[in-house]
């Protein structure tokens, strides 16, 4: 224990110095590639961005649909199935799902677009999309889980609100009530969760990027660590942090657009 405490202090100080480093901007130079980190990131960021966009789209649509399915009859068998999905999707680590997909498609069906060098959408759209397919699916499922939980609880809460009763009471068909009245008013928490998930994907996709050889920002950090290029790691990580902050701001803007009440107060 004493030894542990001995290591403890210097590490903590080390760490705080590192944190200080975050704020001194200036992206360094990555020696092993012979290019600046800035150039590296220029190329890697769009890859991660594309992956994040596809994954979030898949995740939000899937999660909201399952959430709707679950919330339509709370406590019933379909609710159980929906929640079961949410639970398992949360529990499957991305690397397990990825490895399984690779095993099935690459080994059994000999289909592995990610075996080829990464293609940007401009050079070869078809290959690019195929390369994005599996990774987006994997991450999409990971995103769908929390989105589904949020959607379900938000929908259940909205369903009990007075104006839903008014809508039913004036004869609006139930399908319309579900989608136009309940769903539309349940968006706020879903939008927040989407923003959080999207931001998370901008760096948290490192494992998937590694497995599917996508040269994204996460992979850049990982390579930096493995090759002991700490300036790369430092600067890239800070960049990701900035993005996350921007995403949060953007989410606020979306709220303003979506909820007329907040729009009013501008």
């Amino acid at each position, binding site marked *: 224990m004493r030894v542990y405490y001995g290591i403890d202090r210097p590490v903590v100080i080390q760490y705080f110095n590192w944190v200080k480093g975050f704020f001194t901007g200036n992206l360094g130079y990555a020696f092993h590639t012979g290019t600046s980190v800035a150039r590296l990131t220029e190329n890697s960021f769009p890859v991660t961005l594309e992956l994040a966009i596809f994954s979030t789209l898949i995740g939000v649509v899937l999660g909201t649909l399952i959430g709707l399915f679950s919330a339509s009859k709370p*406590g019933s068998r379909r609710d*159980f199935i929906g929640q079961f999905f949410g639970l398992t999707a949360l529990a499957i680590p991305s690397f397990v799902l990825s490895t399984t997909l*690779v095993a099935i498609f690459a080994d059994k069906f000999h289909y592995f677009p990610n075996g080829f060098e990464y293609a940007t959408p401009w050079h070869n759209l078809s290959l690019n999309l195929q390369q994005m397919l599996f990774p987006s699916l994997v991450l999409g499922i990971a995103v769908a889980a929390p989105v589904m939980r949020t959607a379900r609880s938000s929908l259940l809460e909205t369903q009990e609100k007075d104006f839903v009763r008014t809508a039913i009471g004036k004869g609006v068909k139930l399908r319309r009530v579900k989608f136009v009245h309940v769903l539309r008013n349940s968006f706020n928490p879903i939008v927040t969760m989407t923003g959080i998930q999207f931001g998370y994907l901008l*760096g948290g996709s490192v494992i998937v990027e590694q497995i599917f050889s996508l040269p994204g920002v996460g992979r850049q950090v990982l390579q930096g660590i493995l090759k002991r290029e700490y300036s790369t790691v430092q600067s890239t990580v800070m960049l990701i942090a900035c993005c*996350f902050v921007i995403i949060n701001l953007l989410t606020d803007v979306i709220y303003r657009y979506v909820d007329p009440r907040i729009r009013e107060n501008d």
Partner: protein
Amino acid sequence: MTKKSSRKTWFYYYWNSLSGRIGLILLTLLLLGALCSLFHILPYGPLAQDPTAIIKGPSWHHLFGTDQFGRDIFSRVLDGLRRSLSVSVVAVFLATFLGLFIGVTAGYFGGFLDTLAVRLSDIFFAFPAILLALAIVSALGHTWIDTSFAIAIVYTPIFVRVTRGPVLSLKELDYIKATKVLGYSSSRILIKHILPNIMPILLVQVALSLSWAILTESGLSFLGLGTQAPDASLGLMVSDAQSLVSFAWWTLAAPSLFLMLSVVSLNLVGDGLRDSLDPTRKSI
């Protein structure tokens, strides 16, 4: 006071929740498995190689088959489970203590300390957990203490947030203000009055954080930055399985299964705890 009876009702509600029940049973089974590894009551040593039994499928001798070195997968999985669990438990324990300390003092005393704590934890919130853990581990090293520490730092901010919130509102309660007026020392108020009220929310967060910690630790091991070969670790086993899976599916299935079960059981326990806090919740 009425601590005994309230503990009874709390557990009653917990047991009432299906999720909680299944989660607890599952978790107990897993813990038993991990304990077996701890006390070396395994069918085979996790490092023991058997050249006569290479890449054998599941059988009565080897419940989950063997790997390319003839090592029994079942024993390795239990050992890996123990490792993942211990790293995660230590990490979350640290994170809870640190987070609790920072969150409660910041929330209670307010002022500059509070703003500082909030700003710092917001910064950490900006990073995806795995990335932050990666970055920290790269600076620290590959021993299990380093991994624990890295994960602890990653998950401390959420404990800060989770504990600070209730403290802020509890602080304003009349009976807390009354104890202040009566001259109770701050630490006494904190320990006797505020802490018990935070306990339930804290426990839920502990369960959830444990599940995330296990995922993070196995992710790190998968990338080669956590537990090192030849030690067994669930993440590492999955990584090894990548080259074996096309002809030895069990090398992937076993560690994956146990990983998922750990995460699922902890999430269910967290759900059960949440249900016991608020029995009106509409979960199953």
